[in-house]
């Protein structure tokens, strides 16, 4: 665990200051076609300081973490802030002081032998190879990460947190009758916690692998969708991506200041009245979020941020500086990834709130459209335009599922598309297995129910 060399050096006062010691530990095991191509661990840590002087920010970090290095980075961060302040002379007033947040020291983390990860992956791989001879390729990826942070800020916050997460990904490939190779992947399980919390016996996941395999075989007999605007049901994983990419990024206050379309829309109807959206801090729907965050890296206690309420845009996600600019309350969205990263405005666990409809009724309500189940990636634009890669889906014909779809892409403009939402299922689901990218990567949770709406879909 990290020793405390920082709390004695932080001073409360007019200059907002943060000191953060951090250690990130990773394990990655990957099997491709039965070959162990990755079997690695990583430890990267150090200390950083960030200082605000009259509106100009200075940051410094170094890999060494002891009393001297902490003093060095604090001095360098102050010098960087002073350098910019001397040149820019912004003369901005002090940032708001949020109430301090304290944590108890975290419990020691379990140490797991590497053999546990490798054996799980190789046994799972052997089972898949033996059970599904039709497959033309297979990949198993096991990842484990642990972020330990010791943060002291000039508002008085002193927080020592440990955030572990672990996932197993399975990719299967099969050939179509024309010889094209198609691939489908799924996250076997995972989330906040350690490997044994989710994974013991690989055979416990036989049913999930079977479902993935069946979908892949459906896909090898699949068709391309007709390019154009279509009625669709987005499964919860796509609704989560919608919440994150299509809306979430446009309401990050730094992107609003950079010209995001949401800058003109606060207080306006941007979605169907059925739609509400929240960036949850640590608890949602009565349970812990997939990646709970209790304090951000500026020292602000995390609270939920309501973004859309009954179709009306009501909030942005802020750091201390943007909250002051917009006259809003900072709710803990300033997050940094590595020890040498400064906090940026980031989402935590962003979700569309569920409705009252049943998924079967939603599918039955579409004569000609698509049920889109899985996504691999997504991107957003500050105009609200978004796109998601769709890796699995089915046609809907006369209210019933039809042929499977080949890989495709959907796109739309968030605040137009959200007005086409007519049904929301009553069962939200979370996904937390990916990273959000914005200068730095960041683990985030995204969730929502199934959503009936109109989007543009790519074809051939």
């Amino acid at each position: 665990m990290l020793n405390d060399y920082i709390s004695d050096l932080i001073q409360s006062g007019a200059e907002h200051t943060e000191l953060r010691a951090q250690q990130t530990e990773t394990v990655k095991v990957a099997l491709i076609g039965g070959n162990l191509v990755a079997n690695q661990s990583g430890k990267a840590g150090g200390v950083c300081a960030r200082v605000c002087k009259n509106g100009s920010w200075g940051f410094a970090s170094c890999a060494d973490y002891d009393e001297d290095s902490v003093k060095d980075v604090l001095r360098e961060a102050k010098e960087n802030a002073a350098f910019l302040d001397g040149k820019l002379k912004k003369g901005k007033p002090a940032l708001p002081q949020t109430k301090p947040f304290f944590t108890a020291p975290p419990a020691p983390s379990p140490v797991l032998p590497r053999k546990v990860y490798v054996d799980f992956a190789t046994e799972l791989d052997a089972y898949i190879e033996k059970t599904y001879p039709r497959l033309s390729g297979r990949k198993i990826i096991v990842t484990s990460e642990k972020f330990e942070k010791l943060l002291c800020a000039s508002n008085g916050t002193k927080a020592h947190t440990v955030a572990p997460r672990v996932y197993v990904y399975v990719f299967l490939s099969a050939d179509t009758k024309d010889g094209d190779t198609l691939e489908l992947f799924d996250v076997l399980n995972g989330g906040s916690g350690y490997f044994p919390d989710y994974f013991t016996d690989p055979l416990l996941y036989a049913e999930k692998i079977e479902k993935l395999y069946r979908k892949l075989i459906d896909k090898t007999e699949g068709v391309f969708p007709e390019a154009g605007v279509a009625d669709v049901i987005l499964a919860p994983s796509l609704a989560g991506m919608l919440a994150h990419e299509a809306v979430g990024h446009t309401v990050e206050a730094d992107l609003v200041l950079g010209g995001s379309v949401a800058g003109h829309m606060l207080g306006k109807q941007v979605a169907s009245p059925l739609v509400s959206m929240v960036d949850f801090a640590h608890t949602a729907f009565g349970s812990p979020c997939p990646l709970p965050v209790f304090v951000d890296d500026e020292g602000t206690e995390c609270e939920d941020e309501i973004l859309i309420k009954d179709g009306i845009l009501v909030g942005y996600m802020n750091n201390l500086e943007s909250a002051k600019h917009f006259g809003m309350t900072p709710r803990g969205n300033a997050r940094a990834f590595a020890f040498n990263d400064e906090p940026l405005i980031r989402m935590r666990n962003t979700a569309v709130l569920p409705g009252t409809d049943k998924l079967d009724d939603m599918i039955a309500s579409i004569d000609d459209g698509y049920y889109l189940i899985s996504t691999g990636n997504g991107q957003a634009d500050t105009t609200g335009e978004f796109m998601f890669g769709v890796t699995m889906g089915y046609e809907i014909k006369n209210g019933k599922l039809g042929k499977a779809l080949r890989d495709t892409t959907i796109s739309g403009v968030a605040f137009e598309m959200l007005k086409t939402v007519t049904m929301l299922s009553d069962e939200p689901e979370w996904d937390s297995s990916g990273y959000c990218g914005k200068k730095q990567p960041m683990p985030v949770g995204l969730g929502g129910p199934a959503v009936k709406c109109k989007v543009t879909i790519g074809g051939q």
Partner: protein
Amino acid sequence: MKDLKEIASYVLEALKKAGADDAQCTVAHGKAKELNIDGGEISLMRTVIDNSISMKAIKDGKKGNASINQFDEASIDAAARECIEAADAAVVDDAVCIADFTRNAEFDVGSKSGDMDLFFDRITEFLDTVRADYPKVILEQVFSEYSETDTAVMNTNGVYHRLREAGYTLSTMFSSHEGEKATSFNGYEAQFGDLSRPLIDLGMQRALFDQSQKELDASPIGEKFTGKILVAPTYLGELIDTALYKFAGSTELINGTAAWKDKLGQKVADEKLTVSIIPLDERICGGERITDDGYVSENFDMIENGVLKDFGLSEYAARKTGNKRAPSTSSCMAVAPGDKTLDEIIKGIDRALLVCRFSGGEPAVNGDFSGVAKNSFLIENGEIKHAVTETMISGNLEKMLNNVVAISKDTVEDGASVLPYVLFDGITVS
């Protein structure tokens, strides 16, 4: 701090002591200064000092890897034990190896500079120029960095390489605004060796600001068509890189799913297409000198006149698949220019989409792709007409590479690539 050579020697000794038969390490120390712009204003100055050690051990035919960023002996000893624990947990694999000794090399790339005042002045000049020449452009986020890195690579076969490099990066994200009208954001990144010229003149930066302002008058593409797209250098590198990764990359070859797995020496693309990896080219700033496997890098052709000449494999993937290791693991790419100017190509087009950025799902293993053409323009009757809104393109990458209509004589250099405009046919635009 000890010299990196001394640290690298200690790492190898620690790995041997922990039980390694063969061992290799890369030890690096770096310092970077960075200026950030947010919402058109200089906001933050950063100083980042970091270390890294990546180590590889082979024991009884099994491989383990570990990495740390601490140089003290206790941390190195602990990481070495973890690396051996990983090897012990692995399975025997004949393809695991460390680099053979061929020759050792030392490189000094780029010139060191620490002039933060001049760096600041160049950034300020950049901001002022954007405000004056492109008044509708907002710089959403800009990162500019000067970095110095010292790297040592050493292994138990006697390999010892040393690389000292320095250079600058400018990364911009911007969009244009007029009242409540706004364009899609666009981004650009360029590498450069010194501060001798204004940053606005790097690569395509000016052209992209100009295009961004024109995108305020974007309109729909109109009727769906299947036909030509003119791919700009800003998208071409990503497109070809994706195709090479999918069809000939290490992962898909090991998995047995690479479309070109049996096509070495055969035609895989239009004969007009030559793709080279050029880390040592003088137009590349700070290109790779030592491969990820620990060999001295060399330029090479991946596709020559449409024929696949090299898979671009790591040494492990090469041994696993019975092929040869690539002479470089760099991504610095050049596509050979054609014989017509960009203007001549555009004048010869009846209808096409000029695609400057692509936002799409990851292409399927077989190359099927679809996605949104961002920051893109309609070309009709030999002229660029207008920017387009919400336009989707779809096709198959393998077929696309075999459907090259023309390649421009003009190329764009961004310090990491040298790329022309390429006109492809057979793409669905909707």
